[in-house]
């Protein structure tokens, strides 16, 4: 069990710097359900972004439908702004294979053509199967494949590392 709040502070600092360097004044944050939404909301407050938060559910874009079907508890995606021409920051809790991010990018582009997309993750645990890297990383963990890292919330955000299988 590990407190995630200091990691989110570190993410906020990195993101602030990156946005300044790229001269992005009005970014919008898009959280991937569920953990990504919690982190994106913290980042939004920390950075004082007034634009509403986007919520993205990637269930219908996943590449494992033929193997496991539709994920339970699908939620409606909500992007309460025009994606066209906007600078987006995609936020997720754990970056592993990169397949969720691939699905999220495909989903985003069905709403419009963003000017740019940055990727911010709480934990990068390695194990990439696709050419995807994050711009902002709260922590890098080297975990054996049989261990799973999960974010619990939404009040107190904590990282839980568990043995699988």
């Amino acid at each position, binding site marked *: 069990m590990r407190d995630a709040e200091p990691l989110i502070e570190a993410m906020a600092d990195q993101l602030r710097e990156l946005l300044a360097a790229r001269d992005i004044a009005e970014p919008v944050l898009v959280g991937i359900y569920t953990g990504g939404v919690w982190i994106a909301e913290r980042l939004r407050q920390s950075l004082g972004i007034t634009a509403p938060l986007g919520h993205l*559910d990637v269930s*219908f874009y996943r590449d494992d*439908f033929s193997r*496991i*079907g*539709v994920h339970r*508890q699908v939620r409606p995606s909500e992007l309460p702004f025009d994606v*066209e021409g906007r600078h987006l920051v995609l936020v997720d809790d754990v970056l592993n294979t990169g397949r969720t991010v691939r699905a999220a990018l*495909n989903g985003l582009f*069905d709403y419009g053509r963003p000017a740019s997309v940055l990727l911010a993750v709480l934990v990068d645990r390695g194990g990439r199967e696709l050419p995807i890297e994050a711009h902002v990383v709260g922590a890098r963990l080297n975990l054996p494949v049989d261990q799973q890292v999960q974010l619990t919330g939404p009040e107190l955000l904590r990282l839980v590392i568990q043995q699988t299988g």
Partner: protein
Amino acid sequence: MSATHFQLDRRGRLLHFLTIEGLTRDHLIDILDTAESLHGVAERRVKKLPTLHGKTVVNLFFEASTRTRTTFELAAKRLSADVLTLNIATSSAVKGESLLDTLRNIEAMQCDMFVVRHEQSGAAEFIARHVKPHIAVLNAGDGRHAHPTQAMLDVFTIRRHKPDFANLQVAIVGDILHSRVARSLIHALNILGAGEIRVIAPRTLLPVQVENLGVRVFHRPRDGLRDVDVIVMLRLQKERMEGALLPSEQEFFHCYGLTEERLALAKPDVLVMHPGPINRGVEIDSRVADGPRSVILEQVTNGIAVRMAVMSITLGNHARPAGETA
């Protein structure tokens, strides 16, 4: 094994969608929640999801339909499936090919899903029992038996306006006897715990022992419509009627037609629904059908999201982890 159980796998998940009867609240809520996630797709720049990319859906329509057929077609297309629609009443059946031979031929074209509309009760189940196990079968209306996706789009429409089912009073009015829509809707409302379900119809248009379905029976709109939250008008199914079940359409409208005066008996925020196609001046006055309480066209829109949900859930439940066989 009944259709109820036949449509589920060993873990109780939906493999086919043949009837509402016997499903659990969880099954229905899962469909409604999935449909809710899919509802926004139509508002986006790209009205399409990649979920069923590479799958082939065949609409087998042995009976005429416009709304159901086109919304099933659109639902499949919005999930990126390839869709083929066969109006069989006008092709093989006429040439004398048997149902099973028709099935075998279409199966040979490597399909993943059949959407079946047939005038015989039990036709969709028959087909589900005879197709290869990887094929999902959806019932798009079989005789007087069931029309489960219509029932789901009806409860979906109600839930979007009035989510508190425990305190919901729903009146279903008209030709209950010939209505697969009514039968499926009554099952769905009961499973979801609707407060009270009323049927309002002349004795000749009610099935025997209709009370056993869990409804209160009324014969006069002025008794049954009082304070209801939802009114579902049914189409008078002239094509299914044999013999003199009702005197005339004018007489039916006079006794049961939904007019503004009768509408005033219901709650002020009542929802007026109709599965379509509407017979104006037979079941419903145009002023009510086109009026502010009507959600009839919303039902059509919602039908797409609900059918997308059922398609992705059933085909998803046919999915197998790599290496695992059925």
